[in-house]
């Protein structure tokens, strides 16, 4: 048996973003974003609501095009209509399972080849839902649906997994379980992971680097060098979480909000 070493070259995609900007009508969301993500790295993006963190992720997923700038995946320009072939998979805020397909067929979506059945089995087993393969999605709990969505992403053996606040709607205990699951699968598969979250504690628990998006750019790039698996009770963890949170809050609130807060 070989033990996976984090030093060996990973199967992840390296991401390179240069001068990326996005504008919706008159509103500039992102401008001049510069970002490098190493292959196999786990990056978390935090920021206030509406700061553009989800927009950045959707551009990485090819769902939206940038107004300026470029995105390269492993030195190839991102092709918006072929991101699936470039090994990019996205997990949405809601599970987005097809309600008219049983769990197994949802996981098999877009998959072809002779070994589809075995791969679906394997992916569902990895998220602990092997026995629910024939159930309708409506029969699952919210957490189970997100686990099926995770299996659906993993079955394609992605090289870049994008997570758009996938745990936002789950209860606290389920979230902690999902953190452990996502971390374990990331270590096993070696993909590059980009997680967008509003939960700083979640970001510090999972990521190698925490990025803050503020005023259209990456305003903070905080490495997290805590040993894995990380425990939240740990003093170093709490210190780092506090620091990032303080930095997020440092930005003064928009005027109408600060008046409302008083």
């Amino acid at each position, binding site marked *: 048996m070989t033990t996976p070493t984090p030093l060996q070259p990973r199967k992840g995609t390296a991401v390179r973003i240069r001068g990326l900007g996005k504008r919706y009508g008159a509103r500039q969301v992102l401008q001049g974003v510069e970002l490098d993500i190493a292959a196999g790295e786990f990056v978390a993006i935090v920021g206030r609501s509406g700061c553009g963190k989800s927009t950045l992720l959707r551009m990485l997923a090819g*769902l939206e095009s940038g107004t300026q700038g470029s995105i390269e995946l492993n030195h190839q320009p991102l092709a918006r209509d072929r991101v*699936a072939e470039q090994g990019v998979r996205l997990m949405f805020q*809601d599970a987005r399972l097809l*309600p*008219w397909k049983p769990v197994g067929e949802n996981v098999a*979506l877009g998959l072809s080849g002779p070994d589809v059945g075995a791969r679906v089995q394997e992916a569902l087993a990895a998220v602990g839902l092997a026995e629910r393969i024939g159930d309708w999605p*409506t029969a699952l709990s919210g957490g189970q649906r997100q686990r099926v969505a995770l299996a659906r992403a993993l079955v394609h053996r992605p090289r870049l997994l994008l997570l758009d606040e996938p745990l936002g709607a789950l209860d606290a205990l389920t979230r902690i379980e999902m953190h452990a699951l996502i971390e374990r699968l990331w270590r096993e598969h070696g993909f590059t992971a980009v997680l967008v979250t509003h939960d700083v504690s979640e970001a510090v628990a999972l990521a190698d680097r925490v990025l803050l998006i503020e005023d259209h750019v990456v305003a903070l790039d905080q490495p997290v060098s805590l040993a894995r698996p990380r425990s939240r009770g740990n003093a170093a963890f709490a210190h780092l979480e506090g620091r990032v949170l303080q930095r997020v809050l440092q930005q003064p609130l928009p005027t109408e909000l600060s008046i409302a807060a008083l």
Partner: protein
Amino acid sequence: MSQVPTEAPARWRHLQSLVPWLLPTLLLSVWELSARMGWLSTRVLPEPWAVLVAFWQLASSGELWEHIGVSTARALSGLAIGGGLGLLLGLLTGSLRWAEMLLDTTLQMVRNIPPLALIPLVILWFGIDESAKLFLVAVGVFFPIYLNTFHGIRSVDKGLIEMARSYGLSGWQLQRLVILPGALPSILVGLRFSLGLMWVLLIVAETISAQAGIGYMTMNAREFLQTDIVLVGILLYALLGKLADVLARTLERLALRWHPSHQSHNGAPA
């Protein structure tokens, strides 16, 4: 038998299930009685028994089955033509913006013409031929299916389409796996509306003129004052309409097993 307290409510429930049939039974008995006593002329309304006898005679001579066969074939061909066209155009205008721009306004205008208002024109165009009947049925069933298909496709969850695209699905695969199943509940509602309209239009078309079919049988019987056969015809339309509805419901239940509303139906005691 011992007097168990739970027995009484059980017997009461049994009686309760008979209550809906009380009124029809009463009406039938009054009807039969008044016909036998001569209060009701057979020309106005023959006794229920005579209707049954007429039904039996028509059935055993084979005449009945021939008429039912002809009418059903007409109804189904009309449905196939009008419904098929409605489905096709609905899919087209639902999925392609330019097709909607080109066709939808026109179709919405034509939709406001009641199909029965077309009868004089239809007779001028097709005479009193078979094609006239098919045309009327086809026009009538076209719109419910067209409108519900269009609406169904437009109301498919955009999030699911986005997800499927980002998982590499496009073209026919996207249609087959995501858009069509998403539109199916709405399409089936359209089908049920169409089935109701189909019989109404067929009745009218067959009473205008026909050489066979339930409408022909009834109009013919009217000529000879055979009120019992007229009633057989009317009851046949009721039965066929009900049958079509039951079939559509079964189709819905089979095709929409995944739908929460159907799952709760399955779980509930009948």
